């Protein structure tokens, strides 16, 4: 079974802190994704990576950056956390354009 793991299920940070969310997949997928999920808005793509060190902006990249140094690991970075970044963050991976496998999510609260 494909497994996508995320570093934390719950995280509480203060405004202005630098926040790292990590995602690891074990199926050698070249594609990895970071989404943000808010009630009534569905899943919105923050960033996408199709290979090591390669990244593309999604629909809402402002305030976020990403890093992919190894194929299995994709990190989301909030350079200076703000309260409007309080949300559920989901990581996913896929082989080409086929089904995406999601991690359990990280609920981030910024106070």
């Amino acid at each position: 079974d494909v497994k996508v793991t995320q570093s934390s299920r719950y995280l509480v940070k203060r405004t202005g802190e630098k926040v790292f969310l990590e995602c690891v997949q074990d199926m050698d997928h070249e594609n990895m994704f970071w989404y943000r999920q808010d009630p009534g808005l569905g899943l919105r793509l923050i960033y996408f990576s199709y290979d090591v060190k390669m990244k593309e902006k999604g629909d809402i990249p402002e305030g976020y950056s990403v890093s992919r140094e190894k194929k299995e690991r994709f990190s989301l970075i909030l350079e200076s956390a703000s309260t409007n970044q309080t949300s559920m963050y989901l990581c996913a991976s896929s082989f080409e354009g086929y089904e995406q496998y999601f991690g359990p999510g990280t609920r981030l609260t910024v106070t």
Partner: protein
Amino acid sequence: QQPVQSPQAVILREGEDAVINCSSSKALYSVHWYRQKHGEAPIFLMILLKGGEQKGHDKISASFNEKKQQSSLYLTASQLSYSGTYFCGTGVMEYGNKLVFGAGTILRVKS
């Protein structure tokens, strides 16, 4: 641009059928369907590709009208386990392997 899902919410009794629709303003290459239960990660149900290829769940069917950029998910003889939020994710050729997800349809099956 986010695809539009309808209805926003539906309540069924066990054994009843439901149809969830997904409509896009873009020419689509693929449509994915996922189900998310409360507090869990979305799980893959079905993928429909331009040209008619389908891959997915045994008890769930779907259609993809390429000309109208629409897809419908058919849930027949619903079970309590079908409850959750259903998302469609749309793939557009020029976006590569990225998906744009709809806001979701909440389905509740009552006994």
